[in-house]
């Protein structure tokens, strides 16, 4: 190979090496911070369905994996206080108008809903997105409900004979959300013993 070829090769090689080192160093420097941030993110979102008052642990790290009715793995985050499980949170999926709606459901040890939040959805903006907490308080009406205080046949939207309002223009989205929560409570009932086993 000629001299010129070696020059090109060494220039590009040198730049690669140099920037490689720079990036490696930066990565080292930021790695811990980034991990910390991600943890904080998760904690913050979990805190919406598992109020900080009911636990003294970090639910993000206290997880168990259970199988749902369909046999799929579900990660359950557990809130404990003094070693007692006070609440659990897990992801539930409902079928919306435009695809799956993923929600995080928090339930206390008695099976009462602590909170529900939407994680992702593809519903029509302005119509189906009222299930988001920042677009309306519809999702908050589930707080405190359980199979104990609301009979099973009422866990439907009004149109289907249940007790939950649909919002104007959209029936399918609320129906999907209500259905998902109903299934989520069934899941809690079925796996209650495993969930509440002291970690």
């Amino acid at each position, binding site marked *: 190979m000629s001299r010129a070829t070696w*020059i*090109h090769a060494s*220039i*590009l090689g040198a*730049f*690669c090496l140099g*920037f490689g080192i*720079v*990036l490696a160093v*930066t*990565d080292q*420097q*930021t790695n811990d*911070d*980034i991990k910390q*941030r991600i943890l*904080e*993110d998760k904690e913050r979102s979990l805190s919406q369905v598992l109020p900080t008052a009911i636990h003294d642990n970090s639910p993000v790290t206290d997880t168990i994996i259970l199988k749902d009715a369909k046999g799929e793995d579900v990660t359950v985050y557990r809130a404990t206080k003094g070693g007692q499980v006070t609440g659990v949170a897990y992801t539930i999926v409902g079928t919306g108008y435009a695809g799956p709606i993923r929600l995080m459901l928090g339930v206390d040890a008695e099976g009462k809903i602590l909170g529900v939040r939407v994680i992702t959805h593809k519903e029509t*903006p*302005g119509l189906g997105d009222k299930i988001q907490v920042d677009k309306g308080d519809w999702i908050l009406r589930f707080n405190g409900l359980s199979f104990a205080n609301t009979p099973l046949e009422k866990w439907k939207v009004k149109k289907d004979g249940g007790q939950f309002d649909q919002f104007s223009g959209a029936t399918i989205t609320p129906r999907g959300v209500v259905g998902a929560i109903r299934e989520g409570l069934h899941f809690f009932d079925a796996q209650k013993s495993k969930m509440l086993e002291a970690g």
Partner: protein
Amino acid sequence: MATPYKTIIKDGLWENNGVIAMLLGMCPTMAVTTSATNGLGLGIATALVMAASSLLVALFRNTITQEVRIPVFILIIASMTTLVDLCMNAWMHEMYKVLGLFIPLIVSNCLPLARLEAFAAKEPVGRSFVDGLFMGIGFTLALVVIGAIRELIGNGTIFADAALLLGPAFHFMELRLLPADTGVLLAILPPGGFLVTGLVLVAKRMIDLAAGKEIRMAGAHSV
């Protein structure tokens, strides 16, 4: 050869603006301008990357041979983008959560590469830095304007969530100008990006025409 600073700044902000004159970097423009805040965030990140890469390229411009310049430029842009990405993630996490998805897009934005080729590879360090910076600021301005219009029409707000990006001190920027749920949603959906960008282009041409300037037709390269 040295271009006056004034021309560099004017070019970056208006005459040769990356988005509304050269029609470069349309992909991030369309993707992030659903709100003014998003536009601002990506704009700032892009400006940082551009200023840093212009500086570096100008610094090494006599070392880099013609044959390998493109890979080196791309390497520099990619490295700067990764740097910004990492640093933002670590230390400006709220902003990162809003923009994280779009920051890697800076690599594929052809505006930085275009400026490296057209300017930084030929001009001295100081001027190149200013060019990169002001091209970036021009890009930011265009994104903010397009974002603001889309946000206003589509959602009735301007700079919503600015505090998430800039810190709690900037809550005052968050304006709601129309009642909730009355926006023309189309504006914040993808077609709205094209429509509003088109209208902004028209506006620039009309201003230029009114100022008696000759309209240059830009070749539309977009990535």
